[in-house]
C-alpha cells in the first residue's frame, strides 16, 4: 500500500530538526534510514502527519575513537558499522550484530541510531549495545545528555528519550585488554528477526579467570535483559566449558517471556540458554586471542 498522506521537511541541521519537532508536536516523526518507519507507514500501522528527515543533516554518521570510547554517529548505516576497521578490531561483537540485521539492502539504509531509537524488542543492536555498556547521546534544545543502555530501553518500542530529543551518537567504552565480545541470534525463519539473541562482553586475566562479564539477552522481555545470574556464575571463575555452560543455563532466570505463534515461553527460555552459551564461548575465544 501507499502510506497515508503526510508532509515532509528535509532538516539541514540537528537544531533545525529539534525546532521542527517542537513546532509539529505529536504529529511529527523523525526518519533516518526509514527501514522500520516506512514499512509501518505502508501498512498504515503508523501515519505521522509530518516526516522530519534526519538523513539530510550532515555530520551525523561515521565511526571514530575519542579517548577511551568508540563513537558511532546515529546515522551510520549498518553496512558501515559491519565493515568498519575500528569496529571489527575493537568490538567484533558489534560487527556480528550489524551483519545479521535484515539483509544486504536493509543494511545499506538502516541506521544504528534508528535501530536504537525505535527499540524494536526483536532488534539486534539494543542487545549487543547493552552488553557493551554503551551510552546514547540525546540532544534537545536545552543541551545534550548521555543515557546508559541499561537505562535506555524502557518498554516495547519505548526509550528513555523524550519526544523533543534526537539521538545523535552512540558511545561505547573500548574494552579492556583481555576482553572478547560476541553476538549471536536465533532468527525467525521467515522474518529473520531475533526469536532470542545473546550479546556478551567478557574480560579475563591471562590466567584465564573472568574479571567481568556482561550478558544481555533479547527476546525474553520488552527489550534487552541483563542475565545477571549468568554473569554472577562467570565472575571470578576460570572460563572453562563447564563454567560457561553453567552460566548459560541461567540466561533466562528472572524473566517471563510470552508465548507467541512461533515460539512458546519454554522454548524461548531454553534457546536463550543455548544462544547465551554460544555467545559466551565466542567472546571467550576472542578474549584469549
Amino acid at each position: 500500500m501507499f502510506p497515508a498522506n503526510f508532509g515532509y521537511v528535509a532538516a539541514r541541521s540537528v537544531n533545525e530538526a529539534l525546532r521542527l519537532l517542537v513546532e509539529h508536536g505529536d504529529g511529527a516523526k523523525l526518519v533516518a534510514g526509514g527501514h522500520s518507519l516506512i514499512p509501518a507507514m505502508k501498512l498504515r500501522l503508523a501515519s505521522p502527519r509530518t516526516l522530519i528527515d534526519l538523513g539530510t543533516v550532515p555530520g551525523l554518521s561515521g565511526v571514530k575513537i575519542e579517548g577511551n570510547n568508540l563513537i558511532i554517529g546515529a546515522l551510520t548505516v549498518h553496512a558501515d558499522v559491519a565493515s568498519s576497521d575500528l569496529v571489527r578490531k575493537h568490538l567484533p561483537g558489534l560487527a556480528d550484530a550489524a551483519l545479521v540485521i535484515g539483509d544486504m539492502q536493509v543494511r545499506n539504509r538502516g541506521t544504528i541510531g534508528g535501530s536504537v531509537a525505535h527499540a524494536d524488542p526483536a532488534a539486534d543492536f539494543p542487545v549487543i549495545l547493552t552488553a557493551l555498556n554503551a551510552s546514547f547521546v540525546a540532544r534537545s534544545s536545552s543541551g545534550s545528555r548521555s543515557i546508559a543502555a541499561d537505562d535506555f530501553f524502557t518498554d516495547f518500542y519505548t526509550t528513555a528519550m523524550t519526544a523533543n530529543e534526537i539521538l545523535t551518537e552512540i558511545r561505547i567504552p573500548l574494552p579492556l585488554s583481555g576482553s572478547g565480545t560476541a553476538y549471536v541470534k536465533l532468527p525467525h525463519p521467515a522474518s529473520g528477526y531475533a526469536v532470542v539473541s545473546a550479546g556478551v562482553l567478557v574480560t579475563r586475566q591471562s590466567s584465564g579467570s573472568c574479571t567481568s562479564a556482561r550478558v544481555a539477552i533479547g527476546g525474553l522481555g520488552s527489550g534487552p535483559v541483563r542475565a545477571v545470574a549468568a554473569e554472577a556464575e562467570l565472575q571470578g571463575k576460570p572460563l572453562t566449558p563447564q563454567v560457561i555452560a553453567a552460566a548459560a543455563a541461567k540466561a533466562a532466570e528472572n524473566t517471563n517471556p510470552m508465548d507467541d505463534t512461533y515460539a512458546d515461553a519454554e522454548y524461548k527460555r531454553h534457546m536463550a540458554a543455548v544462544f547465551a552459551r554460544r555467545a559466551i564461548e565466542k567472546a571467550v575465544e576472542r578474549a584469549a586471542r
Partner: protein
Amino acid sequence: MTAEAEFAAIPISVTVNGVKHDAVVEPRTLLVYFLRDHLNLTGAHVGCDTSQCGACTVHFNGRAVKSCTILALQANGAEIKTIEGLANGDAFHPVQEGFREKHGVQCGFCTPGMIMTAVDLLETNPNPTDDEIKHAFEGNLCRCTGYVNIVESVKWAADKMRR
C-alpha cells in the same frame, strides 16, 4: 494550514542511469513508483508489501537498496542506477550474461532485483564463496528457480569479471 498545503508536492532532482530528472512529487511517493510511473523505468518491480522480496532493488549512490522502502524525496540529489542502466549500449553487464549463460531466470519477475544485488555484491566482494553469495541474497526472493541457478549465474559472472 490546509491539507493541500501541508501535504504539498515537493520538487526533487534525481540522477537516474546518468540522466538528471527534475520532478515534483507527493511526499508519500515511494522511489519504486517514481521510477516506474514518473520515469517509465519498469524494470524495478513491486513484489510484496513488506520490504522482503527485493524485486524492487536498485542502486542508490552505488549501494543496492529496496526502492519500495525509500521515499522519492529521500533520493533528492542521489544517483540511482536501475536494471535499465546496467548494460553498456549493446554490451550486457557480465552479471546479465551470467543469468543468461546459467539459466538464472524463469519468469523473470525477481531477476532485475537479483541482478542489481549481484552487481553490488561483486563490486565489494569479487570472489565470493557460495555461502557469501547466499548471505548476500537474503533480501531477494524467487518463487520459480529454487535459487541454485541464480548462485551459479553469480559465480559465472564473478569468474568473468575477475578475468
